[in-house]
């Protein structure tokens, strides 16, 4: 044990008389503590008032990071979860970066995967210094001291952790704290854990960024071009000035719209309606969805632009010529909007000294930080970020362009910077101004031999690249191939000899973005539909057929594990009730394996009703099993809802859909019962926010194909399928 600093020095430096023990890994890779965190990386704060706070580096969009990361700290500190508070980390890339991305960013179902050991270490380090502080004070060896439920005890002596904070701050924290034995876990892996953010979200006190009401705050809304790429030629705000509460209307410097300022939201929305804009649409998108669809379908029927597979089309064609039968299908999957419940918004508040504070459900902290600093011409240390709850995201709240942060910063710069400005999007802005899941066409030809084994597979894909032309291009685009366009096909776990994958990039139309599960959202639909069609052609059971095409590799066997678990729990081999059918699909994404059995009923009026989903998931060690189940439930239904009903279409460059009446969300009567089973595993934990999505749509479609027709074009409602509600 070494004394790092004298108690006297510490007390002098401790602000406002409140000591805070903050534990984290400093820049030299050493665990260390300091008052208020200082230049360290605090994941655990203990105030002298007795609060234990877990600092959460990933924003909360519903996926459960506040509960998940706080669980790791509470576990190592031997506390119950309700004894621990949490707060979101400030902007600080060095301290709070996602270890997988190198930036403060939530995405790719990576929060638990990259934080698991980091947060457990932070909690364990806090435990050790508190025990050492007690040891020093009581002159009792560390081995005889225990810490549990916020109390340090030994030989009849007792202290609250808050009483030990000041002495603990003088102790150099261990470089390699001892982690708890998993047999001692009381939170990790337990099913009875309640979400840490449940109470505030059921009593109306949870603060989302749209709830920010600062003194003197004004509202900004933007009137944007009806077609992508349209620019303001001129505008007239004369009628807007008649709206009570209207402040002013200004041209955005990028000419993409006119920003309307008002004293409150309703006035801002009314005034915006009254602004008249002449648009320059000479460079705007003019195509319609029918044209764009034809471009994609033509592309999968001609030579692909990029050969993605090692295997060439020549060898695949040779294998298909030898096949006993070839199963062929062409698919079209439309553009989709994210449509999180909370419309996009953020608030920029001026701070003393000419800086700003962003209040936002901030998914991409680093990129928002740089965006604001660049537009407002401020050094990074003058831009603070306060992260609040986010009312969903599904990927929308971070984009390479940081569009809504850009807009908010431009709007703020159009004021005298003396008042907080809250930018709000309406639902129409959201549906019409999204960065969409790109539309994709696929064409697959699968060759089967006489025994029903796959011997060749020709798979063409066409769609708009998500990553080309963005800062992510250098990491995710190789030899012209955007991995997000082909993931789930080119790296399929099935044993497919002579797999040819060809990709053609579509000419950009609208802005595109990752959408919950990214490329897997279209590739899994096609792969798992084709596997079903191939199984049928081979005269085999779809589950058995999948298992026959998985080798003994560890990765393949983890997928086989969820296949078997879902099939057995769902009673796959039992015949479905009259007019019911079960559909199967499985997929690995974001290092997590999921299989679904989806049961559907065909009603006498010809409509379909989802009745039951049985899922199996292997996400390594299950940290919070009930939260894992909730993500699989929500993700699966998100996937199925879009397969049923949703598409974004363009009419001469304008988005046709505008709000929930015509971008129809899944509703309560659409769902049936749900069971999720988790594979028991000691592998490192992986994420669950996205992996439930990809196999759900095809499992649903496979059930419907067993009752009726196969949907190769989505959404199903657009091609004649009817649903009960």
């Amino acid at each position, binding site marked *: 044990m070494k004394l790092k600093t004298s108690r006297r020095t510490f007390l002098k430096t401790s602000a406002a008389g409140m000591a805070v023990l903050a534990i984290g890994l400093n820049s030299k890779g050493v665990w260390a503590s300091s008052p208020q965190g200082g230049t360290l990386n605090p994941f655990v704060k203990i105030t002298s008032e007795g609060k234990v706070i877990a600092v959460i580096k990933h924003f909360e969009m519903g996926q459960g990071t506040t509960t998940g990361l706080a669980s790791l700290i509470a576990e190592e500190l031997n506390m119950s979860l309700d004894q621990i508070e949490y707060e979101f980390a400030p902007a600080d890339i060095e301290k709070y970066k996602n270890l997988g991305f190198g930036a403060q960013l939530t995405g790719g179902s990576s929060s638990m995967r990259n934080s698991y050991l980091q947060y457990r270490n932070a909690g364990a380090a806090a435990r050790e210094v508190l025990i050492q502080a007690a040891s020093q004070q009581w002159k009792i060896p560390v081995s005889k001291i225990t810490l549990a439920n916020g109390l340090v005890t030994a030989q009849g002596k007792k202290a609250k952790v808050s009483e030990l904070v000041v002495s603990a701050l003088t102790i150099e924290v261990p470089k390699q704290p001892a982690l708890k034995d998993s047999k001692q876990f009381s939170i990790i892996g337990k099913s009875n854990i309640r979400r840490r953010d449940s109470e505030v979200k059921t009593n*109306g006190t949870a603060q989302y960024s749209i709830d920010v009401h600062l003194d003197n705050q004004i509202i900004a809304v933007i009137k944007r071009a009806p077609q992508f790429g349209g620019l303001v030629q001129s505008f007239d705000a004369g009628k807007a000035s008649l709206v009570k509460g209207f402040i002013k209307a200004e041209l955005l410097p990028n000419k993409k719209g006119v920003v309307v300022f008002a004293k409150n939201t309703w006035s801002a929305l009314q005034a915006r309606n009254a602004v008249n804009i002449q648009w320059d649409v000479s460079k705007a998108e003019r195509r319609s969805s029918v044209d764009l669809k034809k471009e994609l379908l033509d592309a999968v029927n001609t030579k692909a632009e990029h050969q993605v597979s090692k295997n060439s089309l020549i060898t695949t064609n040779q294998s298909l010529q030898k096949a006993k039968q070839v199963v062929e299908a062409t698919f079209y999957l439309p553009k989709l909007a994210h449509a999180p*419940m909370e419309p996009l918004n953020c608030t920029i508040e001026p701070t003393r000294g000419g800086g700003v504070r962003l209040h936002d459900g901030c998914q991409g902290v680093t990129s928002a930080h740089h965006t604001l600093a660049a537009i407002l011409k401020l050094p990074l240390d003058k831009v603070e970020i306060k992260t609040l709850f986010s009312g*969903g995201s599904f990927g929308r709240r971070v984009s390479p362009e940081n569009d809504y942060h850009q807009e908010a910063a431009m709007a703020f710069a159009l004021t005298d910077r003396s008042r907080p400005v809250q930018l709000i999007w309406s*639902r129409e802005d959201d549906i019409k101004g999204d960065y969409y899941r790109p539309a994709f066409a696929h064409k697959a030809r699968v060759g089967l031999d006489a025994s029903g084994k796959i011997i060749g597979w020709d798979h063409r894909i066409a769609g708009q690249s998500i990553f080309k032309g963005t800062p992510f291009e250098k990491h995710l685009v190789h030899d012209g191939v955007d991995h997000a366009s082909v993931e789930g096909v080119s790296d399929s776990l099935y044993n497919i000899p002579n797999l040819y994958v060809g990709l053609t990039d579509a000419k950009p139309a609208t802005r595109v973005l990752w959408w919950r599960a990214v490329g897997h959202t279209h590739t899994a639909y096609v792969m798992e539909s084709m596997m079903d069609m191939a199984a049928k052609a081979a005269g085999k059971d779809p589950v058995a057929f999948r298992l026959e095409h998985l080798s003994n590799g560890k990765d393949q066997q983890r997928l086989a594990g969820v296949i078997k678990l879902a099939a057995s729990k769902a009673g796959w081999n039992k015949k479905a009730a009259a007019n019911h059918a079960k559909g199967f699909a499985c997929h690995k994404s974001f290092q997590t394996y999921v299989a679904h059995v989806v049961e559907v009923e065909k009603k006498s009026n010809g409509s379909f009703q989802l009745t039951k989903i049985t899922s199996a998931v292997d996400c390594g060690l299950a940290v919070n099993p009930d939260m894992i189940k909730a993500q699989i439930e929500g993700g699966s239904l998100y996937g199925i809802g879009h397969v049923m009903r949703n598409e974004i279409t363009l009419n001469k460059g304008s988005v046709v859909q505008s709000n929930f009446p015509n971008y129809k969300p899944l509703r*309560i009567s659409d769902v049936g019962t749900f069971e999720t089973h988790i594979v028991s595993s000691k592998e490192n934990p992986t994420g669950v926010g996205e992996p439930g999505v990809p196999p759900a749509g095809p499992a649903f479609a496979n059930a419907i194909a067993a009752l009726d027709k196969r949907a190769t074009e989505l959404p199903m409602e657009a091609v004649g399928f009817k649903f009960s509600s």
Partner: protein
Amino acid sequence: MKYKIKINGTVRTAEAEPGTPLLWVIRDELKLTGTKFGCGVAACGACTVHINGSARRSCITPIETIKDAEVTTIEGVNSKVAKVVQQTWNELNVVQCGYCQSGQILSAVSLLSKNNKPTSQEIDRAMQGNVCRCATYTRIKQAIVKAAKILKA
């Protein structure tokens, strides 16, 4: 114009233009932010409040139509039914992003206050207007069924 509104058991005064939806008076003027903006066209239910005990969409309810009616928001709902509903919501880990849940809870409380033994179809009918993009519907249904059981006991 100044409006007097009976809200959450007290009378509050708010400045608003006629035609302003109750939603924006509640959020922007009274600073009760538990009631949410989701669509503005009564298609998602995030803005649900109780008007004289029944679930209503505040985003399409003009302020001048409220008059003497009692408005209750998530912050003020405190009946026995409401407490049980909040309890079962917490016990079953219903919430995810949570943004729609004030509206979901107020619709569920409205249903269970009138019908303490709802069938699955009755639950669907009462909750059909409340969208949850996280799709927590399975748990919402379970929480309503559980609350009904507790209330009957």
